[in-house]
């Protein structure tokens, strides 16, 4: 059956051949090339569409003769296996970076960050955290800085722009600005004991 050579198979060492009569593409190794001959496109009307389609590509208009035995098993057993990956995994590999501003100067120009900063200041004012006073001459003063973080949802979409005003705690002097800084946390034993009691008494833990 005559056909047109259109290229090479991606998955096996074979030729891709188009048969205009059957309008089918086959992958075969059993071909004889007729290098001098050309395909006569004029005789079949229904091939017009296809010839348009193939114009852009490099098509060697070689007419071939031969029996196109399909290399069924052989040609498909080494096709690449494509697994699925979670979106999270892809994001992790694809170097998607979210820029967070370094300081106040940088953040001022972004409306999202500016809004978040205003909210944080509002919160501080609301809690009456500080009061503006004259600078006492002999006291140590400590700077503050802004921390900007983009909080993501589990599916890597942006949840919110979080801004915190933090104190540069390292500038504090022990004994002058602070003395005791320890605060207790619950031990694992305590937490487990709580569960023991709750289970025994049939209580629920919240």
């Amino acid at each position, binding site marked *: 059956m005559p056909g047109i050579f259109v290229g090479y198979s991606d998955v096996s060492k074979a030729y891709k051949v188009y048969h205009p009569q059957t309008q089918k593409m086959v992958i075969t190794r059993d071909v004889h090339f007729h290098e001098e001959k050309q395909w006569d496109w004029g005789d079949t009307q229904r091939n017009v569409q296809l010839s348009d389609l193939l114009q852009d590509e490099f098509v060697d208009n070689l007419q071939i003769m031969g029996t196109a035995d399909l290399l069924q098993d052989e040609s498909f057993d080494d096709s690449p296996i494509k697994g699925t990956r979670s979106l999270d995994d892809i994001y992790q590999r694809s170097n998607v970076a979210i820029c967070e501003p370094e300081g106040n100067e940088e953040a001022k120009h972004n409306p999202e960050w500016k809004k978040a900063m205003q909210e944080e200041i509002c919160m501080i004012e609301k809690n009456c955290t500080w*009061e503006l006073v*004259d600078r*006492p001459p002999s006291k140590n*003063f400590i700077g503050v800085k802004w921390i900007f973080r983009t909080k993501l949802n589990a599916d890597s979409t942006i949840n919110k722009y979080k801004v915190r005003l933090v104190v540069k705690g390292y500038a504090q002097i022990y004994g002058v600005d602070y003395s005791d*800084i320890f605060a207790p*946390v619950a031990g694992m034993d*305590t937490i*487990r004991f709580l569960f023991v009691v709750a*289970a025994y008494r049939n209580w629920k833990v919240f």
Partner: protein
Amino acid sequence: MTQEKEDKVYILKKALYGLKQAPRAWYGRIDDYLTGSGFQKSLSEATLYVKRINDDVLIISLYVDDLLVTGSNIVQVAEFKLNMMQVFEMTDLGLMSFFLEMEIMQSREEIFICQKKYSREILKKFQMDNYKPTATPMNQKDKFSKKDGTTRVDEEKFRSLIGCLLYLTATRPDILHATSILSRFMHCPTEIHMRVAKRILRYIKGTCSFGVKFLKCQDLKLHGFFLQ
């Protein structure tokens, strides 16, 4: 004192993030509130608060800004939660199901705790998720010493691994012995120690979902033991 502004400064009345005393300030604040509202602090555990109302009790355990609440009267628990939400702008996460890397399953007359997710994370962290599981955490007759002739391994990695295993012992008493023996060699880990540590990980791999189950029992007696 904070933030210069020419000759003006802000005087801090309350703690701000990053301040050295911030955690303590928070603890002081919540301690004041809890003791002020009738809770009694445990003498030996500063994070355990108990309140008795008539015949009912309310127990609270504090973990910085996470609170575990339980009690005999469900109405009182709800009331307390509502109170806390108003005073501290806290959110109610409902029935406890995940706390400090611990999965908690509460059903009728039993509470089951495990660290399945955490176990998987450790296995991934130390690239052990493809190893074959073993049935036991350790060989019975293994003896270890500081100098066993094998080369030293990366101390940092070993320490990190032991740290992870120690945290896992919270719900896995079965690896406690093996982990505690290995933790004696934190300062001089050798290849043999590392191999044994990895064996524990392989054991974990096959037993990820193990945990501790607390059942309601008929009579709970607390036994104390003294060593002379």
